[in-house]
Structure formats: structure tokens, C-alpha cells
């Protein structure tokens, strides 16, 4: 997968690149609108991360430009202005998703994966562990053929852990993913812990394996 990172803050662009490269994406960077415009015209990208607060360009115009020569890249708009207007405008211009600064890189990755699942690779939406199946698109969780009832938040937490299996997810990353985090102030709260306890209880009705490991002082990790 090829991704173009359009971000005038070099330091941030570099961090995004590092994270996504580790996740095996091929990344290009543009620190201004002019270079971005050129790169978009000459390269086929799967994803474009677009900071709309560029010094030389009205960021959203780049989406228009790209769409005008039929590029089928998916656009994830990033903004630091935090105005609701930006979000609505972004979607109006054809953006596929929206992130407000500061966002977690893991969350950014999860948004990319979500679009991928939705648009190209439906098979990735079904993940199995043990005799359990989790269908991300249909939001179903089952053991063999028995449906397991999860609340919305429980499903979000479990699927986030499963999609990032083997990686430690701290409470903050989980909270940000589940609550979006605008009004959220209780990163350290035990809400996540209670949800995890409930998920474990539901899983343990079917098998005794400890799928979700507690990482002391940090959060949780899903072990396959």
C-alpha cells in the first residue's frame, strides 16, 4: 500500500512515516501543497493523509485536484483547528475520514485499516482466534455458531485489541479509540478495566484461555 503524507510539520510527517513504515506501508512525504500536488498527479496512491492547514494551499483543494484526474486514493483529513466546520467541509469535498490533532498513530492506522476492509479487502473483516470469530464489518462476535452478545463499547475494545494483536494497547489508546476523546478527561479511569472484565467473562463462558493479557500499569495486549 502506498501512502502520501501531506504535512507541513516535518517532525510530525517523519513520525507518521516511521510508524506506517513499520506497519509495512510505502510512504511519500510532501511538506507543502505544491509538492503534494505534483506527487498526486504523477503517482498512484492508495491513501493520502492530508493536513488541511498548509501554508501555500487550501488543503481541501488537493482532494478536488486529485479527484479531477480520477485518482482513487482515499483521503484522511487532519486538522488542528478543531472546528466542526472543517470536518463537515472535509466530507463535502470527498474526504473519507477525519482526524483532529493530536491523534494517536495507532488510531490513524486503525482508520486506514478500516477503510481498507471496507473498500478492498472484505476477507480481512473476519478474524478468528481459537473457536471464536469476530466480524468487524458486521459487528458480530461468535463462538462456533453461537452468537456472543457484546455491547457497542465491548465490541469496539475487543476488535481493537484483536486487530492489533501482539501489541500492547494502553488505556489511553483504547479510550481514544472507543470514546473519540473530545470531552474525555478520564484517561486513567477504570472504565476500560470494567469493560475488559466483562469481555473476559463472556469469553470464559466458552473457553478458559486468557486471550487478553493485562500489562501492569499500561493496559492490555491480545495474544493469539
Amino acid at each position: 500500500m502506498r501512502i502520501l503524507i501531506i504535512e507541513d510539520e516535518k517532525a510530525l510527517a517523519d513520525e507518521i512515516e516511521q510508524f506506517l513504515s513499520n506497519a509495512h506501508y510505502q510512504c511519500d512525504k510532501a511538506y507543502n501543497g505544491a509538492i503534494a500536488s505534483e506527487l498526486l498527479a504523477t503517482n498512484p496512491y492508495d491513501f493520502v493523509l492530508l493536513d488541511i492547514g498548509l501554508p501555500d494551499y487550501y488543503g481541501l483543494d488537493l482532494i478536488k485536484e486529485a479527484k479531477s484526474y480520477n485518482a482513487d486514493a482515499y483521503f484522511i483529513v487532519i486538522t488542528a483547528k478543531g472546528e466542526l466546520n472543517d470536518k463537515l467541509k472535509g466530507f463535502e469535498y470527498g474526504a473519507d475520514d477525519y482526524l483532529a490533532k493530536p491523534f494517536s498513530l495507532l488510531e490513524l492506522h486503525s482508520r486506514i485499516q478500516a477503510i481498507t476492509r471496507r473498500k478492498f479487502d472484505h476477507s480481512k473483516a473476519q478474524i478468528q482466534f481459537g473457536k471464536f470469530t469476530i466480524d468487524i464489518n458486521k459487528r458480530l462476535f461468535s463462538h462456533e455458531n453461537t452468537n456472543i452478545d457484546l455491547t457497542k463499547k465491548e465490541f469496539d475494545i475487543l476488535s481493537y485489541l484483536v486487530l492489533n494483536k501482539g501489541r500492547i494497547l494502553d488505556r489511553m489508546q483504547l479510550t481514544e479509540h472507543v470514546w473519540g476523546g473530545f470531552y474525555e478527561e478520564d484517561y486513567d479511569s477504570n472504565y476500560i478495566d470494567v469493560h475488559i472484565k466483562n469481555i473476559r467473562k463472556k469469553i470464559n463462558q466458552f473457553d478458559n484461555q486468557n486471550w487478553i493479557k493485562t500489562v501492569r500499569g499500561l493496559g492490555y495486549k491480545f495474544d493469539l
Partner: protein
Amino acid sequence: MLLSNIKLRTQLALINAFSKILIIIIAVFVLPLTVREISIQEMDKQLIDKLDQLYKLLEENGIEHFIDVQDDAMGYGSYNILKEEYVSIEVSPDTVLTEYIESTQRLVDGEVLDYRIISATFEYEEYFYLIEIGKSTSAITLFEKNLKKYTFIFLIFLLSLSVIFDLSVTQILLRPFYQIIRKLKLINHPSNFNYAVTKTNTSDFKYLEESIHHLMRRIEDVFNEEREYIGNISHEILTPISIIKSKLENFSDNTNLSHEDTIKIYETKVTLGRLTKLVRSLLLLSRIENKEYLLDETININQVAVNVIDEIKERIEVKDISLTENLSEKEFTLFGNKELIHILMYNILNNAIKYTPGNGSIELSSKHINNTYIIEIKDNGIGIAEKHLPYIFERFKKFESGTHNFGLGLALAKTICNYHQLEIQVESKLGHGSTFTLIFPKKK
């Protein structure tokens, strides 16, 4: 003032009508009097003429023609047939020569009549005689009465005509003025400033409108500058935070780190999260204070409450708090900003959850009272000490006990209430819980 808070159009009409009524009153009383005065003067002239004619007749014919000189008692009197005029000559008891005119009454054939009378004494062959020539004033009185009546009717007619005329003319003249006023009434935010020029030939209105447009442009510029400033601050602060956050995230992915170091990085991230939350709240406060949020949505308050409960439900369940929802079935809508009202309800409910221990209860209820809709959020949590109550809506108020740290949540709630002209009240007893009350006024 009697004429305070009345439309200019009405004021003009009232003043016009008042001045015209004054004119009518003056006309009805003064005009007939003047006419009478003129008539009397005219009559006096005639009387003097007639006296001269009578003197001439006396000279030509001698007094004997009128009076039997031998008989003292006899006088001469002559009336015309309708008693409008009379002449009398008699011997005067006085021996002083006088001549005067007066209005007085005379008994004629058993009838008291008003006359204007010229009286003169003259000497004729050593005798003094008194002449009276009288002219009835009943004609004048009648004329005066009629004049009063017709002047009144005529003036009333003129008045009505001129009031109608005045009203329509002021209506036309003031039309641009009221168009400008209407335009101003529709403006409640720099985003809907209307610079359309009102058609008028009146230079004052042109000047008025130009001045208003000039002021509006200045306000809009200041508003936009402020907005841009807030946007820039937001960008300038949130971008470095974003860089730090990404660096920390990449850093903690490093598998060579010890668990303790990873925890330290995590704690730094949490602190950064607090800073982010703080910056966002401050920006939100600035945006509200800069009136960037439009109050142009029709909001069903109960629906917002239900949405907030839905959003926050899991926290209530996780804490094992029981929530009773008792919203009035008769719904209430207000005009405002949905996003802000949502934040308001969220913050208050979230606050209640935060300070209510497990197994506690929260009650959300609403009712219509008189001209208000009242929402109450009542918890049986830890409550707030009385001395802290006046300060809980203040920004960054620190309470020494450390039990409460309201941060910006309630300050934000208060700001949103002010912005929507709602009232927020709190009642609390330490250890027994708090009740937050939102009072929504009903528009008349």
C-alpha cells in the same frame, strides 16, 4: 416619558394629531369671537352713520317733527317691524353732552332683546334730548353660533383628511428607515451581516445606513481576526502536542525499553492528554465568547438529554449507579446550538457520575413551570461544601480539600448557559449530594 418606547411613526402621528386638535380648539373658540368683534365694529360704524343721518333729519325738520315739545313726558320711538332696529328720542334728565355705544338689553313688547345701542345727548333750543339708536345683535349671535358649528365640522373634516395624508406621507418617507430597522433586527451574528443598500432619497437615512455598514464591517473584521487568531493558536499549540504524542508513541513501540520506561512514557502521554483536554476546553471557551457558534438550530432538549444518556450510559453501568430518567412528556424546544447544548448536558451529567460513588443514584427530571422549562440533575454523591458552592463555575478554582477538581467542565457549562441565556443553579449538601438545575425560559 409618555412617549418613550413608541415607534417613530406613531410618535409623529400622535404629535400631528395633537397639534391639529389644538388648532381646532383655538379655531372653534377664537374665530367666532373675532368675527363677532368685527361685526360689532361694523355695526358701531353703521350706528354712528345713522346718528349723523338722524341729526340731519332733526336739523331739516326740527324736533317738533318727532316730539311734542310742549308735553315733557312724551318721547319718540320707532321700531322696524322685526324689532331689529329702533330709534328713540326723549328729553334727557341730564344736561351733560354724552355719546357712547354699548351692548345691552331692552324690553320690547314684553320681550327682552339684545341690542347694540348708540346713545347720545344733544341740546336743542335750550332743552337736552337723549337719542338712542339700537340694532339687534341676535343675528350676530346666531351667526356666531352657526360659525362655531360649521367651523368645527369643517375642521374635523380637514383634520381627518390631513391625518390620513400625514400618515401616508410619513409611511412613505419612513419606509427606508423601517427597512433599515428590519434589516438590523434580522442580524444577530457577524456571519449574517447584510450589506444590501436600502433605496432612499433621504440623505439622513443614507448616512445612517452607511454608518451602520461601516460599523458592521469593522465588527466583522474584528470578529474574523479574533476567529483566525483562535484558529491559529489552536494550530500552534495542538501541532507541537501532536508531534510530541507521535514521538512518544513511536518511542514506546521500541521493544528494547524496560517495562518501567514504557510506563513512564505512558504517564507522559496521559499528562499530554490532560494538556490537550485543557487546550481544547480553553479554545472552546474562547470560541463561545467570540460568539462563533450560531444559535440557529431548533433543539429538542429531551432528545439531547436522551442522546447524552445514551452516550454516557456505560459509565453509569460500570460504576453501578442507578439512573432514573423522568423527563416531562410535553417536550420543549429551544433555539440554540446543538453541539453546545449537548456539551452542557454532558458536562453536568458527567460531573454527577464522577462525584457519585458506586451504588449511588442520579435522577434526571424535567417539568414545565410557568414560563420556564426546568431540568434537574440530582445525585446522592459526595456533595459540595457550602463555602465552595459560589465558586464551582469559576475557571480553575482550586479547593484545598482536594476532593473536587472541577477543571473547566462546569465553567464551560456556565459559559454555554450564558451564551444561550439560560440559568444554571446548584444546590448541595456535603455528603448528601448535589442538584444542578437548568432553567430554560420560554419565549413569549
